């Protein structure tokens, strides 16, 4: 008998443990290991349910027993959010990974949330379709994790974020309820839009077990260009001019850093005839700025920003601003970094979402994040600190939820009154 099957090793009441085993089977329950730690807390158990109803039942028993549950997909973004106030059990969706129905002629897919993004995209591509989203680490990241963290990339400019792609959802609530909302059709206004409620909720309201998405065709052809600007002001002028033009680009992102001049990448998708005409228009629009063919490295820009060697001296923040505040914001990042003696680089999407990497002493990182957050919140924006060094003094990952926090807490209280799911990890200590 290995340690996983010894009730006392888990520190959990043995009767409860046997109930879990009765639901998922002995082989799908094990003791938590150091690698399962979340924000410094090591859960006692890891459970891998094989069906939605098994998951709901495990969740219900945990809730009844007062255990804190951390839902987990691929585990790629488990560090996003505040450290959990408590963490007793990891509820993994790894075995809930089936693509239930790809209704390609209807441009929809129904999928279990433990399925990875890559597996889903490969299946959809067989019919020339895609989920029009480019989240981080698609080979490991799951549908459920990407939904819960509301991760989006460059394609958001054209196709919207997850909130615009998800059309149906099934969630398991802490009381064991399995509830569905939305449906399998793109246009549907029957009942409340709970798919949007759980998207970006960091698993604090329920565990998403199933999702339905609207799909888009894969492009016939693509063409990408890079535009070099002299400084952040010129980069902003170019970005706003492109946004105000008749170009139908798929994405537009700009790179800034302390050691290179700004460049912007633009991607066009469509027919060859359309691409040629749009590239010509782009060159005309950019005037004196240099336009060149883009290297394929730009596709991976966000993952590159996230691939740092020193987690103990790196912070990564997702900043949200108005597109017209780009140059001002980059100027602010530059000044703040200088003040705290930090290296910095940023990837800015034309939607106003900007990813910033800062490197230096933890004290300096904290000071810079704090200063930037105050400035951004004063302008109506926000800053979420999604990677912080472990040694950095406590710093709220999210910032202010404003006067809506009361309703958010009421929603949490209605669906998870005991604070079973990811306690303390979300805004306002939800």
């Amino acid at each position: 008998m290995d340690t996983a099957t010894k009730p006392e090793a888990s520190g959990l009441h043995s009767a409860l443990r046997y109930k879990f085993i009765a639901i998922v089977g002995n082989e799908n329950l094990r003791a938590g290991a150091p690698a399962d730690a979340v924000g410094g807390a090591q859960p006692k158990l890891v459970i891998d349910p094989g069906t939605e109803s098994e998951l709901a039942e495990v969740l219900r028993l945990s809730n009844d027993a007062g255990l804190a549950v951390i839902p987990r997909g691929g585990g790629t973004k488990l560090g996003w959010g505040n450290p959990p106030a408590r963490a007793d059990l990891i509820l993994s969706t790894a075995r809930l990974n089936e693509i239930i129905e790809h209704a390609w002629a209807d441009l929809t897919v129904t999928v279990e949330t433990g399925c990875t993004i890559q597996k889903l995209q490969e299946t959809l591509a067989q019919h020339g379709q895609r989920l029009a989203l480019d989240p981080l680490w698609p080979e490991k990241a799951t549908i459920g994790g990407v939904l819960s963290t509301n991760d989006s990339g460059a394609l958001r400019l054209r196709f919207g974020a997850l909130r615009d792609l998800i059309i149906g959802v099934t969630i398991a609530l802490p009381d064991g309820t399995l509830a569905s909302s939305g449906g399998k059709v793109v246009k549907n206004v029957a009942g409340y839009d709970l798919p949007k409620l759980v998207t970006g909720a960091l698993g604090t309201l329920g565990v998403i077990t199933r999702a339905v998405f609207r799909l888009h065709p894969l492009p016939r052809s693509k063409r990408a260009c890079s535009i070099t600007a002299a400084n952040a002001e010129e980069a902003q002028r170019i970005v706003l001019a492109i946004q105000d033009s008749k170009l139908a680009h798929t994405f537009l992102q700009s790179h800034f850093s302390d050691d290179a001049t700004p460049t912007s990448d633009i991607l066009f998708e469509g027919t060859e005839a359309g691409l040629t005409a749009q590239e010509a228009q782009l060159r005309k629009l950019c005037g004196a700025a240099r336009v060149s063919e883009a290297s394929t490295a730009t596709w991976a820009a966000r993952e590159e920003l996230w691939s740092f060697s020193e987690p103990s001296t790196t912070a990564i923040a997702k900043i949200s601003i108005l597109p017209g505040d780009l140059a001002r914001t980059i100027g602010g990042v530059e000044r703040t970094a200088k003040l705290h003696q930090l290296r910095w680089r940023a990837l800015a999407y034309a939607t106003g979402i900007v990813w910033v990497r800062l490197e230096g002493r933890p004290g300096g990182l904290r000071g810079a994040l704090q200063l930037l957050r105050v400035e951004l919140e004063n302008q109506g924006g926000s800053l979420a600190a999604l990677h912080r060094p472990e040694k950095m003094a406590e710093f709220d990952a999210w910032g202010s939820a404003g006067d809506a926090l009361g309703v958010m807490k009421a929603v949490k209280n209605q669906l998870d009154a005991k604070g079973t799911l990811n306690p303390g990890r979300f805004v306002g200590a939800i």
Partner: protein
Amino acid sequence: MEARILDELRTIVGDHGLISSPEELHTYECDGLTNFRVMPRAVLLPNSTEQVQAIVRVCHRERMPFVARGSGTGLSGGALPVENGIVISLARMNRILEVDFPNARVVVEPGVINLDVTGRVSPQDYFYAPDPSSQSICSIGGNVAENSGGAHCLKYGFTTTHVLGLEVVLPDASLVHFGGKTLDAPGYDLAGVFVGSEGTLGIATKVILRIVKRPECVRTLLAAFPSTNEAGAAVSGIIAAGMLPAAIEMMDNLSIQAAEAAVHANYPNCGALLLVELDGPVAEVEALMANVKEICRSNDASEIRVAQSDAERALVWKGRKAAFAAMGRISPNYIVQDGVIPRTALPRVLSEIERLSKEAGVRVANVFHAGDGNLHPLVLYDRRISGQEEAAEALSSKILELCIAAGGSITGEHGVGEDKKKAMAKMFAEPDLATMQRVRCAFDPLQLSNPTKIFPTPRLCGEKPGEYAPHAIESAGIAERY
């Protein structure tokens, strides 16, 4: 209503902001769905957020329900007054507060008319994308409540896609802000939950909208087919070819006749008409349009026209947008239905509708947002003939059941309101509805804001919902949850 409450309300909005005489109240006893009527106790016409808050404060204290109303064009009874309640009309809060072109944002009050947003930004070549057929009279506040769609949602999305933030007066009169001008505000996406909640979570007093740059060109193709089957096959062909048109609309012969009689859109007389609109850069659109024409031809289209001017294009759309009202030309009374089906179920569902229609002796005209599966069957009847109204209503319900059985929805854009409460229980299982009601309780524990709508069985907040039990058809293996 007690005189003291009426007086208190009058002091908030002034004499001109209060309607309480029975003759005048009649205007407000229903919305676009006229077969339900309830007299409100009073109608209030506030002109500011502060006035809305003050009114709601009185309602909260007195436990008096209220219903917010925009232009009253809704087709599901969402703005139907509730017994012993008041109506709060947002019609006077109709200012466009801010237009920000560099960031493509517009801030409006809820009473602003949908088309006026586009009117305001069109000189700079922008538009507001959601375009319900009633766009020249419906209000943004109403659009927010209903998550209104329109013909172009296939490419551009719905109201919820274009609402970035909201100022809301909650049912306890507190003022809160959901979302904002920037994306991904910290916390739950409450703007996403509020849009489409049909007035049951509070009253929006300010709305931040996203506007869109006009595409370089728009081309509209009209193709005539022998029947809806060939037209449907052409739609499938277009989707399979990897195109995402701005709109694909289908009309059957009866709808074509009605539209012709009403607005002389110069439609060909055929079994089914397809209207395909592509927009974007000229070179791209021309290349794809050639493709669409080929697909239509290979599916037996007898006539294909591409509108060459804005005027021709407007005429093509005029026929389609007038289709509902045009039914008056061929039938004294009609019911507008709003079901959704997966697009591929179209041939099966249409032939079933035809069978039911013959069986009931009631004619059905079909107008269809073919790209996204939103079906608008118009059930035609004559109220003066005894039994016809009942037969039409029964047929209309059966059509909804067909949509549910096909894996679709009971409403694509008109909302549940009063009209489809019962059908909700057919589309959703009890735990689904109970979960939605728990969300409602977080916003409105006393159930004052448009109570009695959407949900078939009202639940008092604090009442614990039952545990999950499989739906009967689920246990029988007939249906599965999605």
